[in-house]
């Protein structure tokens, strides 16, 4: 069999980057007790505002910065709905996703009139000709800085402990003098920033442009990864890498003569099948965060 393993690893890291960023964002918000189904819309906003920023200011860095700001705002919108107003989190999240995607498409149509969108300054690749190492800077930042930092922050800092306390037992946290609302607002803002970075990776690194439906369900995959990972950082990263590896593998297998007999629909479905199987195997006896889906009200 002729699989190019180095190219497979390269593709795995690239494809996994937006998934891992979004999944990390979701781990943080869900640990605080908020299921953020606005994730798909937040990624979309990140992709679009990143594109807009890069086009307006002529630099991918500006695009990234603006995408992060937009992600924070999207997180805060979820916070207003679910923390301040105590709206049902499923409804608020899906509503946020629908609203944000529609708003981006609307703005894009107003500004670009429905044609092909322009090319923007995009991030280049580091170590362009070295196998596996030739990745976008954001991929390096994600795996070498953001992931370890998130793991450390959640595990060993006061901030992380407060987050866990608020998500597990908000009454006790409140009694201990922690502002439940403030922690949840912060979690949603940081989570939103990470999700938007994941989206911005698609427009600012992978494509160098924006297209409608650019996220194509990656946010929903990230939600599955978070449950698969049981709200832990490293398993979420592993899950993202697994999904991306199977995706990269099927893209190679589908053009090898040895696998001609396998229907291509099965190949395309393969990464999703793997996630579903992984969820079915690991998803038994799940212990959700104690205050999952529950708005907190002082009584």
């Amino acid at each position, binding site marked *: 069999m*002729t699989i*190019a393993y180095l*190219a*497979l690893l*390269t*593709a795995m890291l*690239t*494809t996994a980057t937006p998934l891992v960023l979004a999944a990390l964002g979701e781990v943080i918000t869900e640990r605080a007790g908020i299921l953020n189904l606005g994730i798909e819309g937040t990624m979309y906003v990140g992709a679009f505002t990143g594109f807009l920023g890069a086009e307006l200011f002529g630099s991918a860095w500006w695009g990234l910065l603006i995408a992060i700001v937009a992600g924070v705002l999207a997180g805060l919108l979820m916070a*207003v*709905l679910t923390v*301040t*107003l*105590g*709206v049902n989190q499923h409804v608020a999240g899906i*509503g946020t996703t*629908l*609203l944000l995607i*529609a*708003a981006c*498409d*609307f703005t*894009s*149509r*107003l500004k670009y*009139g*429905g*044609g*092909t*969108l322009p*090319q923007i300054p995009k991030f280049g*690749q580091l170590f362009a000709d070295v196998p596996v190492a030739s990745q976008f800077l954001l991929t390096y930042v994600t795996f070498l800085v953001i992931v370890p930092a998130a793991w450390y922050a959640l595990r060993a800092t006061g901030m992380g402990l407060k987050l866990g306390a608020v998500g597990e037992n908000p009454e006790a946290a409140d009694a201990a003098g922690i502002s439940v609302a403030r922690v949840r607002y912060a979690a949603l803002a940081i989570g939103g920033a990470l999700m938007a970075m994941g989206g911005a990776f*698609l427009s600012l690194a*992978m*494509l*160098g*442009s924006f*297209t*409608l*439906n*650019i996220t*194509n369900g990656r946010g929903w995959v990230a939600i599955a990864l978070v449950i698969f990972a049981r709200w832990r950082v490293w398993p979420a990263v592993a899950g993202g890498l697994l999904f991306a590896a199977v*995706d*990269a593998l099927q*893209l*190679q297998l*589908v*053009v*090898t*003569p040895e*696998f*001609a007999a396998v229907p*291509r*629909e099965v190949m*395309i479905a393969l990464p999703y099948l793997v996630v579903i199987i992984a969820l079915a195997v690991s998803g038994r006896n799940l212990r959700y965060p104690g205050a999952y889906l529950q708005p907190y009200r002082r009584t």
Partner: protein
Amino acid sequence: MRAGLLPESRHTRRRPRFTRGLVVTSVAAAAALVLAACGGTTGSTTTSSSSSDSGSSSSGGSASGESSSGGPSTGASTDKPLVYGVFATPLEEPWDGAVHQALQAAADAGEIVYKHTDNNDSDDKMTRTLTDLLTNEKPAIVFGDAFSSEDAIRAVAKDYPKVQFAFGSGNDPVDPNFSTFDNWLQDPAYLAGMLAGGVTKSNTIGVVAAMPIPEVDRIVNAFIKGVAETNSKATVKVTFINSFFDPTTAKQAALAQVAQGADVLFAERDGVIEAAKEKNLPVIGMMVDQKSQAPKNVMTSLVWNMRPTVEEVLKEFKAGTLHSQNLGQYSYMKNGGSSLAPINTDIPGGIPQALIDKVTAKQKAIMDGTFTTPIDEKAPAGSTTVGQ
């Protein structure tokens, strides 16, 4: 004290709930407004918003003036026919974009009043949109793409026999009023295949295409036959991404083909050129000349020109002879409906002049009718070695 506290606590409890209700309502109202505005742009919900939107933002200046002053019966009362574009995908998708541009050009030239609605992505939405605009705006001709809602659109057309329909479709036309067209790009695809076969050094060529449906299959198969003409040892790898528009997936698919040895790519779908740029490989574009996306990599593009199709429909409409027919031939190369974009030799490895001469000669043969590109609508395999 106690009596004083109780009402107050009830009061403080109630106020936030009231404020909450108010905020929820206003956020919901704002959201509804944004969504409604968006629905108006895509024009898929109500006729009034879609007409005002397409009038102001998309139709040409003179055309929009006419359409807004004329009211619902514009199509019947003015000398210019009202032509509607009813698209299943967003306009940003290149296939529908090509139809839209041709109609827009006709409107800019003052031949028609043009309005459009897009993103009618289900049978139900398509039926509602069509019925709505046919009843309220009475267009003379409706253009669109029927691939994802063939039965639904044909059912509506049957109910409005006085309106002429011209839809992109893989099926046959229906009397008296349903014509079909398609992007018959097999000619430029064959020529592009000849180029690809001639420039590949690894004898491996990658094609990233949408999905195995007749209109895509015949382009890819013609491309493979073109490769065979200039390179008898070549292998063509074909990946279907199962979407008409998913550039990030298309890019990853192209990179996987490069990993499998491909050193020339054919971007049947958007996203592949980005991969070619990253790997500095020659690539062939699609639908429009995509050279500007990567001037040092795009060696040519298959170009679809819908103008001849639109012109033929309008000519027959004016003459009063418009009837159901297969308009496919107006997308053929020899009728000006498709072409190969100017060949760009400034690509990695360059292009030998002998190869260009060969392609030019074949193009002449297509134009004068001495060569007809074979049409094969069977799904190509993931990996085809042309000599076998």
